[in-house]
């Protein structure tokens, strides 16, 4: 007898029973299940956390019914006996589709389990909390409703299921919406706190003015895979953001896994045009070479220059976001496109130390009309 009841035969019998239900029991929602897609039931009892739930149910009916809409207006966090309500999620779920006894209604939702719910649960000695939803197909004829629940177990802060608990999008060393000059270096920073430990996958994306004046189209700048763990706020830095084209740009870090409970925040930055200054080509000394009092600093002459200013810095000005003052420098007449550093300036420089230098051409009014790139020299005395 046991061998006769093969799995396929069982499925067939169940299907026949389901099909015959409407004839005997009328229309109803049944076979409700809730799956926790986050991978584990553990949630840290001190940190708000995110969970992704898949609700599934069958709607059976007699005769040939048209489509039906199944809805759930809200979800509640409760204790096991459903006597203590710890919190409510006021987010409606709704789906319409033709009725099929074999194709369930499926809903996915990503919820936040807030800190106040965890706090109330802990304080009332609830160590397993339930998230429940009532689904109904009303006002359809012979409508019914079903309550489905999934459970979470409170655990210590390190053992919660891996998820993003806090996420903040910022620019590094810049305001929330910075206005930068063309080709200025700017990086965004995704500051992420997680519960548990796991691997995050995401992409840095930017929409340039070529689309932000219409529908933003995001270009992927970088694929990110990082292992994160609770206990720290981890910054994930973007690559240098595009800053060639003037106009408004949008930047975001889009999570691929785990899912965020809402759309990722987007930051805006504005690139503004700056007057283009011609470049002075530096001739000597070559970048990275040694220099002493005899070294001739030479550059290409600039037409209409009244003079040149050579400046030396002890830090690379391109790598410092804060303006630095030159350690030494010199004004040179325009009839000479070269100079050597007098002893009084050499005294300001340390032997064996690296310095970055550049040249600016000045007009009669002291305005900068051309500038060189930065080269470095190591002082040898």
């Amino acid at each position, binding site marked *: 007898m046991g061998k006769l009841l093969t799995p396929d035969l069982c499925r067939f019998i169940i299907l026949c029973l389901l099909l015959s239900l409407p004839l005997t029991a009328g229309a109803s929602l049944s076979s409700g299940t809730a799956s926790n897609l986050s991978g584990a039931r*553990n949630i840290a009892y001190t940190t708000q956390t995110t969970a992704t739930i898949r609700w599934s149910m069958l709607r059976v009916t007699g005769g040939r019914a048209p489509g039906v809409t199944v809805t759930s207006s809200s979800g509640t966090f409760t204790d096991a006996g459903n006597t203590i309500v710890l919190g409510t999620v006021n987010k409606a779920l709704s789906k319409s589709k033709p009725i099929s006894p074999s194709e369930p209604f499926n809903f996915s939702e990503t919820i936040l389990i807030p*800190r106040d719910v965890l706090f109330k649960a802990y304080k009332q000695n609830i160590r397993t909390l339930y998230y429940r939803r009532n689904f109904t197909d009303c006002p359809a004829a012979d409508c019914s409703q079903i309550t489905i629940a999934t459970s979470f177990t*409170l655990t210590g802060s390190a053992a919660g299921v891996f998820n993003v608990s806090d996420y903040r999008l910022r620019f590094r060393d810049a305001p929330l919406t910075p206005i930068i000059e063309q080709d200025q270096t700017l990086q965004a920073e995704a500051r992420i706190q997680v519960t548990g430990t796991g691997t995050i996958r995401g992409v840095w994306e930017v929409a340039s003015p070529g689309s932000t004046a219409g529908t933003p189209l995001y270009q992927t700048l970088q694929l990110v895979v990082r292992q994160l763990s609770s*206990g720290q706020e981890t910054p994930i830095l973007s690559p240098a953001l595009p800053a060639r084209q003037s106009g408004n740009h949008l930047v975001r870090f889009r999570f691929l896994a785990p899912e965020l409970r809402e759309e990722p925040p987007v930051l805006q930055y504005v690139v503004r045009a700056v007057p283009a200054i011609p470049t002075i080509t530096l001739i000597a000394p070559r*970048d990275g070479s040694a220099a002493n009092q005899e070294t001739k600093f030479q550059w290409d002459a600039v037409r209409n220059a009244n003079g040149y200013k050579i400046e030396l810095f002890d830090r690379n000005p391109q790598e410092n976001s804060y303006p630095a003052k030159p350690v030494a420098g*010199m004004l040179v007449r325009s009839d000479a496109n070269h100079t050597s550093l007098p002893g009084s300036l050499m005294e300001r420089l340390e032997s064996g130390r690296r310095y970055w230098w550049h040249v600016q051409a000045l007009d009669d009014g002291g305005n900068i009309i051309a500038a060189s790139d930065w080269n470095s020299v190591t002082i040898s005395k």
Partner: protein
Amino acid sequence: MLCQGPLNVFGRLILGRVSSRTLSDSLNRSIMPTDKPCEMSLGNNMKHLRIRHLPLCLCSLMAMAQPMISHSADMLTLGSAGEKGYRSSLDPVEIHFGQAMPADLAPYLRLEINAIDVTDFVQRSDQGLLYVPQEPLAPGFQELRLVAMLPDGTIEEAAIWTIEVRASKTFRVAETQGQIDLQVTHRVADDIDNSPSRRTQGQGGGTFFSQHADGDWSTTSRANLVYNSQSSQNHSGKELELTDYQIKGEWQRATLTMGHQNISPNSLVLNGFNRRGLSAGYTSEQHNFQTTAFSTRTEQITGFNHFTGINQSNHRTSGAMVSVNPFTSNPDQLTLSGIYLQGKGQSEGVAEISDATDKTGGDAQALIADSYLFNRLWRMRGEYASTSFDFDGKGTGLSSETDDAYTLLLDYDSSRANNNPGGDSGNWGLSLQHQHAGPWFYSLGNTAVTADRETTQLQGKYWNSTFSIIGLVSTGEDNVDDDDSLPTTAIDSASINLMYTPPMASVDSGSEPPAEWVFSNPSYSLNWSHYRLEQIDTPTGFTGDDVDSRYHEVLLSAAFSGNGWYWNLSQSFIDQDDRVLDANDQETLRTSLDSQFTINEYLSISPILQRTETDYVNQDMEIRSWLAGASIDLNYPSDWSYSLSHTVNREEASDDSIDSRAALTQATVQWRYREAAQNRFGITFFSNGSYQTTEDQGSDADDYQLFLGINVSLPISM
């Protein structure tokens, strides 16, 4: 001795020791001896000066309206500001020779202004030196230094003055600057979903900065505004958005700041709290007492609404900080700080996803002792903090919950020593830190502290000019209150970061540097980290999942660069081994190649290639992602610029649950019709477009947009 008075020229000292007997005699006759030490306020730039000085000093004071009245007039005096009563940024600098000035010294004098030698533009005469500024001197106090470079190579410092450059008689500094940029863009063609109904859109931004100062007070203000006719792209939902601003006034040692604050005392209860609000601060004359009181918006905000940030009591965090250095002779020896704050609101603000529970709030306080000892080599820091926070909302449900946290740090760092040689001899450091935070420790001023965690961490590091290594081991536990209804999990981690940059070959100034090739100027790094979680105590009746997992991450990278180019290659491997939930096991491999090549002054190319592969080892499933692309920028002729970029992003799963491909091509052409200059419009015409193809699980879409536009920019300076 700083010689000063109600003057606009502070001649501080004339020092010198000359090797020539004639000059020495002359100088010494003109120098008045004093038993007080001379103050050499030369700034950091001068700390390596090796010029010899006599232990004598002389002040050359110049009254505002009384030129050259000085007891140092025997030798060198600085000319006065002239008839208008102040020195402006383009006023000539006159240095007059006194009777005691040796005639043969004059040709050897060199003039420096703020470390810039301007001698080439100095006009010499028998009476003195005259320098007409070739670029405007910045308002404020500027340093003039006169140096004698004698024929035998000896360098003597003849005089240093601090001069005051004023914007006007009323203000020492009076400056207003800004720039407005506005783009008007018209969509001339498109085929894309959800395109905005208006074909013509406006975007832009404005920055404004001003500062005024005189005497012992100053004010600065700055503001950033963004305009976007698609208001949904602005955080405030308005077309014109005030993104951030700050107005700051300083009077003597007191400050008052309105707008965006930067309150970051690195405390468990307050750190990185950059919000809009008001603050006031005071620093004592010896800088051994500092206090700041603040009241700010709890949440990060933008826009014109809630301009002050403190208009809603349910979204306000207020507090005060006090810091005292009891040992004035060596302030770093001990710093004692106290912090108190009280706040209401949410931890979720603009561009944040966090806890948005309404009407929560509480207060927090911290005491900090920080000490640098033994030539700053050792640092000891301890902080105790406590919070009281109502997690389910003020006045509802449960009452506030009180908890505490502390951190102890013992740190040695050889680079902190004042006489640290650094360089190739290297530096090293060792630090031991222990931190405890209770489960309900929570401050709105620093939401990054992980509650319910006790951690001990040991870090060692060594670095020199080419090599660095940082090693870290850490061990900790959760369930710090030993609640027997909750499991306890141990968290252990270790990491090593190695970096090696071979020294650059020494190149003589006269010789050619080594030829560059594709592997020039290398830099290598290796990062390894290990993380382990293990449930070490399970309560009876626990219904959750046990925890036993290990994580490894290895990152290798190499970077090479030359004149106008770089490329770097990196590879990382992440192994996630969950011994309870097999489905969580993952192995991820990521490879990345980034580069930029500047072909010449007009053309640059930036290719990129990245690949990630995640293997869910117990689910027989792999997810693979690819990113490939390149951008080309061309600036030729000088008023024209072109850019073209193309990227392809592909993601697929071995079980076909993911199968997507997106390609985006963007192009821009710009023609600068008129260059912007101070208080003069700059105009640029442009055209840009984008074309995107997407394929996702069999559904395809092609979208494009083409725009024409004009960009107007106006730099403002007053």
